[in-house]
């Protein structure tokens, strides 16, 4: 069992003014091994908080979250992270970034080199091993970040808007790459995104979260990710069902946003 199980997860922040913000309220979900979950929601709905709790960077106020029946008590290698941008170590080359985790564990260097080559080929960066990362484009940098995370062979991959800073064309290529890697490695993935299309395209399951307090508003099970493995992603976007789902979720999020505006005024 490599399930990620969350039970009555609550997260309450205290602002310096003394107000309390209920970032997450009574979150209950189970993620089975090999599932790809996308999380969508307006800003301030607790998506990133959820991811940080899963990664172990912050501890929940109450409730518990377990991976493989083990309580998450801090950051660990079994949960890899991919950030939006700026998380690469720009003083290192591509290969040094990718093998960072293995070097920290002081693994055998020849074995490490073999793995690095292997992963660079998977993400399409063969031959870039000695390039300094600051010379890479945004899309290539995210490929490095993916390889750096996957080389550690984590059980769960947490992606915090990994494609958010890329241009549309690169983004589409990267979406295919994420699907390809998911299929080939069979990893459990949680992917947070702002883009409704991306959430629909990549998510085997999709949570739409609502703010104040942060909670799961609606859950979908989607066929598009499976389709995406075989078809061109642009074809899927023309799919009727895809279109209606997109409109449904968009209007849902619009309503949430309006509700927030109303509350504030």
């Amino acid at each position, binding site marked *: 069992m490599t399930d990620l199980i969350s039970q009555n997860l609550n997260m309450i922040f205290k602002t310096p003014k003394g107000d309390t913000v209920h970032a997450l309220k009574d979150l209950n979900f189970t993620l089975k091994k090999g599932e790809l979950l996308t999380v969508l929601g307006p800003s301030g709905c607790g998506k990133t908080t959820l991811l940080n709790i899963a*990664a*172990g*960077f912050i501890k929940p106020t109450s409730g518990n979250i377990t991976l493989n029946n083990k309580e998450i008590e*801090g*950051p*660990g*290698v079994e*949960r*890899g*992270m991919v*950030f*939006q941008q*700026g*998380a690469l*170590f*720009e*003083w*290192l080359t591509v290969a040094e970034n990718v093998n*960072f*985790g293995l070097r*920290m*564990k002081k693994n055998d260097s020849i074995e490490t080199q073999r793995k690095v080559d292997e992963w660079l080929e998977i993400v399409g960066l063969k031959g870039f091993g000695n390039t*300094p*990362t*600051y010379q890479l484009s945004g899309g290539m940098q995210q490929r490095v*970040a993916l390889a*750096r*995370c996957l080389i*550690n062979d984590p059980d769960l991959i947490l992606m915090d808007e990994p494609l958010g800073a890329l241009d549309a064309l690169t983004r589409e290529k990267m979406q295919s790459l994420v699907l390809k890697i998911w299929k080939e490695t069979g990893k459990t993935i949680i992917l947070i995104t702002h883009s409704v299309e991306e959430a629909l395209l990549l998510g085997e399951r999709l949570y739409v979260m609502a703010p104040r307090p942060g909670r799961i508003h609606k859950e979908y099970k989607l066929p598009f990710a499976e389709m995406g493995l075989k078809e061109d992603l642009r074809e899927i976007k023309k799919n009727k069902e895809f279109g209606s789902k997109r409109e449904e979720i968009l209007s849902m999020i619009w309503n949430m946003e309006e509700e927030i505006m109303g509350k504030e005024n």
Partner: protein
Amino acid sequence: MLTQIVTLLIFVAIIGSILYGRRLIKTEKVDAVFGNPERAKGGTHWVIVGSAAILLIWLYYSWDIAKAFYPKSANELCQVAKINDSLMGLKYQFPIDEREFKSTSIIKIENKNLKKIEKEIQNTPDLNDEQKIILLRFISKTSQLIPLLTNDYLMEANTKSKIKEMSEEIRILSSNFKKKDYPFETEADKIERLKAVSEQGGWGIIKVQSGTGSIENTIEVPVVPETNKGLKFHTAAEDLKVISDKFFKLRNHNSNFKTSIKGLKNEIKLYRESLDDSEEIASDYAKNIVKIARRIEFASIYPPGALDEMQSAIIEFDNLQKSEQGGLRLIDIILFPAGTIVASGPSCSEQGSGRWLPKPSDTFNKFILMSKPSVGYKNIPLLWIEMMDVSSIIGFILPDWIADILPGNYPVHTKDGIVKENFKGKVLKIVTGDFKLFKIPVPYGHIWDSFLRVFLGLVFGIIIGVPLGLFMGLNRFAKGFFDPLIELYRPVPPLAWAPLIISVLGIDNTGKVFLLFMVSLSIMIISARAGASGTQLSKIHAAHSLGASKRQILRYVIFPNSLPEILTGIRVAVGMCWGTLVAAEFLAGTTGIGFVENVAKKYFQYEVIWITIFIMGMLGLLFDVTLRKIIDKTIPWRGKG
């Protein structure tokens, strides 16, 4: 010779570059509008013009061009200056350079003084009427002295004939001065003069005093006339000096005046004696009146017209000597800007920009001289190496207590007076460096000392500052605990600490290194702290998820991430340390570049001052360029992350 070539080259370079620049403007396509930064690119020829202009200004205002093209001009101008010096006193008596006769202005001043004192006496409540009457009578008697001097009929025949005599002497001097062989120098005199000329050396000569190794400017401008023209002026100046002395000894005192002033002085003396202590004010006024009377007595007041003959003789001679100067006058005006050569007493000196702006050629020669390790400055070379035995370095590094903690005792002499060495004694010899090994070259000298101080101060600052700064950037306790300490001493200008630190730690290296350590420490702490606290959270998170330990994150993430900030801090610290060091060496010390400048200042060695300025500039530039290279090599990702 070199200066001549350089000067001509500069002219060629400036004119050539300007012509090239003008042609470039004409041929270039004007596709860049005003405001386009492209227009500022290139332009090495303008750099040449700029540098050449600076050098030209330096050559010109230091009078090096004059020295190069007219090496004898300073000596000749010195002789001219001697004439001006002798003439000055005489000319001063007449309205030649002044507006009025000296006699006229003295009479004006003394009458004014008498009027002032008269008014004071009349208005003061501190004197009684009787005193006032007496004092006012003294004043009128004093003012009556002046007509006794200015009356032509009263002037004595003896005085008149003496004035006539002197006028005649000046006329003879003038007529002689025109002659080609004027000084009528004998062969023996000439040999003696030329011997003196060969001994005195050239203009701005530098002599190394043997033995002491110190550099002295022996003379600025050679005094003994080297040319015939100079000799003419020199001899005329001497003759004039005699006449001038005679004139100033002469007093225009006739018998009427003598009796009058004697009577007045006596009267005032008796009056003052008759006054008691309570009448001090009246006594003071009487004293002031007698002072004015004395001034009239000793001033050279003559009747109007009595000196007319002499005046015309002096004017004649003055005009003559000016026309005799000829081309020299032009050189003085054109090639000696902002000053000239002046004579005072037995010596001549440069007065003006040529004095404090050393000639490039002199500076260059002196720099080469000072670079010689046998000369240096104050017996210490600027930069040289000495052979040092490695043993003394080992002895310096190893602490002596290593021998002390060994078991056993140090050897004691036996009753035969023999000392038998044991193991402990041998170890002591090693840790104190008392043995012979091979020798290695070690640099030393003023420049090395300054450099070493900056280097050591900086290294200590980095060793302590960087870890502390990183710690402060990551830990609330460390930040709170050390912040007050640093913020308390950091804003104080480093030099304000210098007197305290130097008096506690001594004027030698320890004090200065500590001062520089203080300077670099605060800079390093602040930059390392900024670097550590500026690490992006996502990088830290990523490192955590990749399984790095705390120590590994510090070593492999936070430290490299702070490196740009730390290196920039080092660059700032080097600049600050360099500035502070030179000033600290001014305050106290026995070596170092700042010390050299400070000593040179005391002896008005302007060349040395400029040399030290140049060395400091070059070293500062060297530090900065080196660090910039290091920064570019070590943190190429800076600003691109």
